[in-house]
């Protein structure tokens, strides 16, 4: 299933689409010692979904998506550590708003450009934010990061515990909402319009679409989602550091999405799982060489399987169906 949306696509949720959620709940009960890694994966899935919306569905290439993730992370962190605003949903909402505002403003400036220029501008924006976070240490903790971020128990009941149980379920619930909204968006006329922008902007102009305004709008929506993901990271770690901004988290996210499969919705699920699990295990086994493994995998995917892991699974399933 490519989940490309459109006027001919059946929007009903298929049974396979429940598998990630079943798997996540199974992990919760069966792998209690891996819940903090699990929460991190869930956060990155949300982040990857937000990237897939603009990269996979709309065709906006970016190396600066960490700008929104990082801003969301710092907004939640500053509220919890400095401003005494410790309500988790308030922190999420503030992070979402801040990221949306940044998305709208920077999008309005840079989305008049395309291709390599756009790529460089997105990178410049997140690099600028990284430098600000580094220099404004009175607010952000600078290179030491911001620790002691306080977050109230979820719904006044569920405290963030040492084993990451609350964090995992909290992230899972947020991801579920994000996935559901995004899925609706992709199957809506707006989603169909986004694939039109990806396929041919000249034609979109000619059918009367205000292309630039639409690009800014979708960029803002995507930024909002990335901001929420960033806030989740701060809330579950009760810490935020400089590693949420700049080129590295953007590039890492891009690698995850390409591994999983771009523009397929569930590539954003598979990619972070594959990448972060591999990172966790390989980094323990081969602390110096594990990046080589990821790099080799990426080369193989790009050369032989442009649809990523989900694309491979799709073609295998299609072949199985053809041979009874």
């Amino acid at each position, binding site marked *: 299933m490519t989940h490309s949306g459109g*006027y001919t*696509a059946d929007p009903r949720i298929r049974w396979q689409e429940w598998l990630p959620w079943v798997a996540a709940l199974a992990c919760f009960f069966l792998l209690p010692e891996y819940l903090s890694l699990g929460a991190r994966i869930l956060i990155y899935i949300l982040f990857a979904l937000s990237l897939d919306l603009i990269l996979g569905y709309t065709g906006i290439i970016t190396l600066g998506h960490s700008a929104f993730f990082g801003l969301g992370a710092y907004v939640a962190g500053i509220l919890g550590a400095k401003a005494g605003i410790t309500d988790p949903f308030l922190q999420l909402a503030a992070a979402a708003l801040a990221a949306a505002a940044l998305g709208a403003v920077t999008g309005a400036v840079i989305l008049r450009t395309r291709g390599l220029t756009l790529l460089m501008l997105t990178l410049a924006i997140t690099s600028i934010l990284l430098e600000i976070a580094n220099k404004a240490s009175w607010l952000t903790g600078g290179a030491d990061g911001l620790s002691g971020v306080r977050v109230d128990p979820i719904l006044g009941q569920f405290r963030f515990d040492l084993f990451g149980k609350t964090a995992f379920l909290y992230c899972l619930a947020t991801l579920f909402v994000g996935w559901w909204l995004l899925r609706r968006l992709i*199957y809506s*006329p707006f*989603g169909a319009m986004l694939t039109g922008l990806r396929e041919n902007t000249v*034609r979109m102009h*000619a059918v*009367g679409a*205000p292309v630039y305004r639409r690009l800014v709008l979708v960029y803002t929506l995507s930024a909002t989602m990335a901001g929420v993901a960033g806030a989740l990271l701060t809330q579950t770690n009760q810490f935020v550091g400089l590693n949420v901004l700049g080129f590295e988290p953007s590039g890492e996210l891009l690698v995850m999405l390409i591994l999983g499969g771009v523009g397929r919705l569930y590539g954003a699920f598979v990619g972070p799982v594959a990448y972060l699990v591999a990172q966790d295990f390989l980094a323990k086994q081969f602390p110096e060489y594990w990046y080589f493994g990821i790099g080799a995998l990426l080369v193989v995917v790009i050369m032989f399987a442009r649809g990523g892991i989900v694309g491979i699974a799709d073609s295998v399933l299609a072949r199985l169906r053809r041979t009874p």
Partner: protein
Amino acid sequence: MRAALETRGLCKSFGALTVAQNIDFRLDAGARHALIGPNGAGKTTFVNMLMGALAPSAGRILLGGEDVTRAPQAERVKRGLGRTFQITTLFRNLPVLDNVALGVAERRGVARRMWRPAAEHREVRDESLELLATLGLAEDAAARVGGLPYGKQRLVEIAIALGLRPKVLLLDEPAAGVPSHDSGRILQVLDELPGDIAILIIEHDMDVVFRFARRITVLVQGEILIEGTPEEIAADRRVHQVYLGEGQHA
């Protein structure tokens, strides 16, 4: 009568190169008008200025009597200006139906809806299917447009434009590159276009021009050389010289 489309003193130059010079042009409702001229005469530049893809250096463009010289493309389309492209410009990886539906959705103001699934917007689907059926493309609705034969792709170009319900339609070489056994179908479609649409066709094929057009404008080096009925154009000596080649009169 108010012109459906009018230009007054339209000019365009890139540095020292002038590609449109003082073009006064008028298209009435229901017109069947052809724009011809040798390669590089500025025909496509003229269309791009009309559409708003290119800003003129001077002059005015009036659509339905209102000045749209500075209006963005989306605004002109909303006011009833549609076009097809000389080089097929489709959503290659999308189904034929979606190619038409994206335009229909824009016209109906549905394209920004983010909640109800696109497939459940029956009004867009049905209208698009109906349009495809009138062009004989109903069976191809679910096929990927990039996989269709070229002749059918040219028909999809026309279908997309018609989905915008244009008052003025600019056809930029609608039959270009189509093998001759398929071009008959395109000509038939052109003949059957709704009579109230003002149509400007840009075409190299003189058979198409003289069959379709009731008025012809000849553009040479960015300037209008002559405008008239097909008979007048066919009889004009200057047209033969600059357009059909001086060799014939040597």
